[in-house]
């Protein structure tokens, strides 16, 4: 039975690969291209490419194959729509529960500014930063996903953070 685990073309194996990699791939594509570029469809496309090449890609290499496809813009779905990343206020970390109208307005202004600033970050910085801050990915994990060195990841995250702080005037 062990022999099956080496065959990406085996349906059970492929399903397994989908289940363990699709969510990370989706998040990566979402943070990179935003919601208007159909990240879910891009995930489908990436797996379709994997399926086509299932004979040549060992299951252990599937993750890097998928992210390589995603990183190298080998996906047709990229329609170059504006990168739009919406925020959902209910997800905010626990903040003040006292909300005056003044506060609410300032808060909204802040969030809009932040949204803008995030969307304007260079792709590479944005993805690294968000994967780290939101998804809790370690620097090495991100390095593997982006196919760059760990130091490069650290630099990107730090730079992104600095840019955001600058744009938001360090409230």
């Amino acid at each position, binding site marked *: 039975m062990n022999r099956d685990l080496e065959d990406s073309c*085996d349906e059970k194996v492929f399903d397994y690969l989908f289940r363990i990699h699709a969510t990370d791939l989706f998040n990566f594509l979402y943070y990179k291209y935003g919601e208007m570029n159909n990240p879910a469809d891009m995930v489908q496309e990436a797996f*379709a490419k994997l*399926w086509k090449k299932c004979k040549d890609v060992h299951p252990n290499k599937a993750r890097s194959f998928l992210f390589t496809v995603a990183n190298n813009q080998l996906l047709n779905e990229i329609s170059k729509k504006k990168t739009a990343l919406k925020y959902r206020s209910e997800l905010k970390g626990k903040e003040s529960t006292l909300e005056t109208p003044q506060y609410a307005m300032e808060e909204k202004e802040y969030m809009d500014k932040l949204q803008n600033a995030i969307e304007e970050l260079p792709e590479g910085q944005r993805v690294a930063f968000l994967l780290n801050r939101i998804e809790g990915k370690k620097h090495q994990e991100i390095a593997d996903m982006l196919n760059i060195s760990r130091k490069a990841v650290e630099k990107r995250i730090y730079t992104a953070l600095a840019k955001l702080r600058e744009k938001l005037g360090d409230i």
Partner: protein
Amino acid sequence: MSEEGNIMKWLNGDLSPEEEKEFLKSSEYQSLKSLSDRVISFKAPKYEVEEELNRFKDSYSRKQEARKINWYVPIFRIAAAVTLIAMVYFTFFKSTGVEIVTNAGETAEVYLPDSSIVILNAVSSIKYDPEKWTKARKVELEGEAYFKVRSGSKFDVLSDDGTVNVLGTQFNVISRPNYFEVICYEGKVAASSDSDTHTLFASDAFRSINGEANFISGWHNDKTPSWLNNIISFESVQFQYVIDEFERQYDIDVQVQSVQTQKLFTGSFRNDNMELALRSICIPLKIEFEIIDKRTVILKGVDK
């Protein structure tokens, strides 16, 4: 430890508990925290893995792996064939489709599941499946029908020679042997036959007669087809087609002698008065007619 180093370690979750305690007290962290917390609001939407996996399987066909030859297989194959036959049997006899047929001299009015109205001309039929309507909106047409589609409603009309994609509009479709015609009366319709696809707006027509497709803009100025008012009209069609339609309208057999049925005819006839109708079609082409009995009429061409 530099500030940058501290921040980086914190970002990576690498601070020891004591280091973290210290760090959290720093003003450095305080300003970071508010930004950091708010960034979490930008979390990607939940990815439904199982749903997406199913979607993947639906779109990308999976080929069966070659199986080892096994003598159980022939038995399974036979069992499968029997099951398949049974399934086909039940599908055929327990079909949920609806079919409405008109005979010669009849018209019918049908309401589709979305409240669109279809008016059938004589010797025509439509088929559709109300139970599958939400998934597959298709109407199969043979003959001629006028569609009044409910605003915003979408479906396809399929016939032997072409397909019409509908979106809240009014149009007439004719699908007879070698004659496919779509005339739009209101809204927008996309008609396609083997060779062509066209978008039709009100007053446009798409005709494919004997394989020759034509798109004509501004074909008519009518609000509705004339046959809804008992007048069957023709524009540059072969006389044979006029005769065929005459037979369908009056449930009668028309025989011809020395008539050039290839000649193009433009005109009309009423479908509620046979003698007047015969005169309408015969006089322009200098043809004489003779009514033999209730079911037979002879058209005789006048020899020069």
